[in-house]
């Protein structure tokens, strides 16, 4: 079943003289992990906002997300209940004065009874390893802890789709690993994920990758297929995952026969070729 079914989506910012998204198609099935890549200004964040019901499309032949019509006034409000969006800067997403207050924010907005909010908050604190930080104030958390809190806050409201807009761009490597591990776990538990990223090794987490250029989808396929299209990558000003860059250099020197994308594959290939 497709949770996201979009055909011919268009969006234009007020006052802009061109569309930020042109005639965009996107289909995402339940449980799928889709990466969205593209240069700065290619429309990734705009797409993330539209998917989360935080803006209304200018038009679309079809714009169904979790059974709601994004173009519909009611629909774009209703979709906020099912689609969670995590943004880049954790500082600008934490509303609560403490970690637990922040996890409660979405549930409070749904006007759930207090004991139910408390139960769900406890559950999320445990799941995200934040129990010890329950009453910690946001400015005293590390970057990774902040973004993990923001993610737990987004998912405290049970969601069917998680949209991430470059969630690790402002984190140090340790914080980035923390957040990616949490995303990985949610995906493994069957959550549908749309992951906007500029990091090519994050693309490798996805089942499928969609590349945007000037508001149009110019690629839709497996990550390995995207990385095989060197000309396209170059035109999108995208690189390769770090391990693949090394693999490519080794290939050019004749050490490797074919390109490997992940560190594990690279190590395996090198060990297999060892005399």
């Amino acid at each position, binding site marked *: 079943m497709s949770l996201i079914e979009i055909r011919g989506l268009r969006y234009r910012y007020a006052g802009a003289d061109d569309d930020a998204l042109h005639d965009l198609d996107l289909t995402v099935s339940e449980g799928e992990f889709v990466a969205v890549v593209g240069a700065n200004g290619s429309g990734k964040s705009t797409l993330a906002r539209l998917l989360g019901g935080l803006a209304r499309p200018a038009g679309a032949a079809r714009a169904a997300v979790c059974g709601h019509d994004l173009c519909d006034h009611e629909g774009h409000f209703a979709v906020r209940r099912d689609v969670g969006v995590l943004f880049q*800067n954790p500082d600008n*997403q934490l*509303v609560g004065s403490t970690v637990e*207050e922040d996890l409660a924010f979405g549930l409070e907005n749904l006007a759930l009874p207090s004991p139910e*909010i408390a139960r769900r*908050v406890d559950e999320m604190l445990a799941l995200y390893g934040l129990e010890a930080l329950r009453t910690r104030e946001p*400015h005293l958390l590390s970057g990774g802890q902040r973004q993990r809190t923001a993610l737990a806050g*987004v998912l405290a409201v049970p969601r069917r789709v998680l949209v991430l807009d470059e969630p690790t761009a402002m984190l140090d490597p340790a914080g980035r690993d923390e957040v990616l591990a949490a995303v990985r776990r949610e995906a493994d538990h069957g959550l549908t994920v749309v992951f906007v990223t500029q990091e090519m090794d994050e693309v490798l987490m996805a089942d499928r990758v969609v590349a945007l250029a000037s508001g149009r989808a110019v690629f839709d396929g497996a990550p390995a297929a995207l990385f095989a299209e060197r000309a396209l990558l170059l035109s999108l000003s995208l690189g390769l995952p770090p391990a693949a860059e090394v693999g490519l250099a080794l290939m050019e020197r004749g050490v490797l026969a074919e390109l490997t994308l992940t560190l594990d594959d690279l190590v395996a290939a090198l060990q297999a070729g060892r005399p």
Partner: protein
Amino acid sequence: MRMAIAQYYPRASPIHRLDPRCKVVAVAALVVGLFLRSSFAALAVYGLVAVAGLLLSGVPLGWVARGLRPVVWLLVLTFVVQLLFAPGPAFYTLGPLHLSLRGLAIAGYLSLRLVVLVVASLLLTLTTPPIALTDALAWLSRPLRRLRVPTEELALMVTIALRFIPTLMQEIDTIMKAQRARGASFTRGGPLRRARALVPVLVPLFILSFRRADELALAMEARCYLPGAPRTRLHPLHAHRRDAVVLVLVAALVVLAELI
């Protein structure tokens, strides 16, 4: 970076446990009582109530003294002005200055009243987390909703503003460090020059804040926030019998102070 305002001092004391609404009403009653009647006896009663509250709260006295620091100058000024300019027969004259016993009494009374006032308010802010205080004020101003005052939204606004104060402080610190690395000085020169040195700090701060407001609004909407829609709370306010007892006790003491 330390903040100038008196901060919450977390502790499990009987005063901390009181419903914040009860504390707001009790302190308001003390403050109004203090202004209704000018007598040393009434002042003594209110002073004892404030001191008893402080002792029960278990907040270290050093912490309280720090909260009093911002009003020290006001205190000195009040005392000196009253002492010098209050009318009455002088007991000591030095040139144009003449000090009277009545002046001394008034100066003493007004300064002590200021101290009691500040200690009573500190008792509230030291034992109540800011969010609880905001919640209490929102609840107490509920009747204003009839006049279409968006009290809940205002309370949330204040809560968020409080949440961002330390973040802004951190940002100011970072920007100042960056400017210092480029040779700026915030301590050199007269007040005008120092004020001017702050401009390159405040401009990026404002720009950051506007972007922050946009992103925060989006993140709040993404978490199903709709202004005006009914909300519930993780920690709703709960009044207990002890709150009623405290209110009755405070009411009795106010009546006593006004009568003696």
